[in-house]
């Protein structure tokens, strides 16, 4: 990724099976301007190979709303990668 672009800071949250796989509940990280949800998830796949293959069974959220994977992030966003829901 181009390093000349300014970074933005987002908060990333993990739940359920994905929280257990990564060992992360919540973290703040910097990522280049223009990063999409998909690119952010790829970054986690490189960090946690156990996540590879999981994307098709996850839905992304941005600021408490479900979001398409090619949504670009803004500074201050809350991001989560959500497993299939099983409430009720």
């Amino acid at each position, binding site marked *: 990724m181009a390093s000349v672009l300014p970074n933005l800071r987002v908060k990333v*949250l993990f*739940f*359920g*099976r994905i929280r257990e796989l990564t060992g992360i509940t919540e973290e703040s990280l910097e990522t280049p301007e223009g990063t999409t949800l998909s690119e952010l998830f790829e970054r986690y796949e490189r960090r946690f190979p156990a996540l590879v293959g999981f994307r098709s*069974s*996850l*839905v*992304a*959220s*941005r600021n*408490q*709303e*479900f*979001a*398409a*994977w*090619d*949504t*670009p992030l*803004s500074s201050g966003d809350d991001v*989560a990668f*959500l*497993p*299939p*829901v*099983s*409430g*009720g």
Partner: protein
Amino acid sequence: MNSISDNHWCDLLRAPLDASAATDYVRAGQDGAIVTFDGFVRNESHGRPTLYLEYEAYESMAVGKMREICVEMHERYPIHRVAILHRLGHLEIGETSVFIAVSAPHRAAAFDACRFAIDTLKRTVPIWKKEFFEDGAVWADGELPPAPPAPKSAS
């Protein structure tokens, strides 16, 4: 964490759910019917005896999605008030995990709206259930909520 207005009460709670508080909240003189749904912990899953369950949620988003369900219920059905309470944390067999109460002047709308509420909650509210057995634990099979088809433009 909760969302309360004059026609809905959505709550995520770590203590036993108070069903009578929910029905009292929705009950009013203009109504003629209340329909409730009580979802509780079953003692088996796919034939394996369950010991207990643990529920977790993306709480701020879950309350938002529960509130959206209430708004949509009021748009779709001639109902009066809705209460949707969901429990989080450790639940024993037989304990209520979700309680929904809907009031309306007439019963048909209350039945239909209550069914809509639990069906939509199970598809769209970010809550997860882990099932504990004698020989291990699994995250329950769930439903993947639909993502928006088109990307939002950068803000």
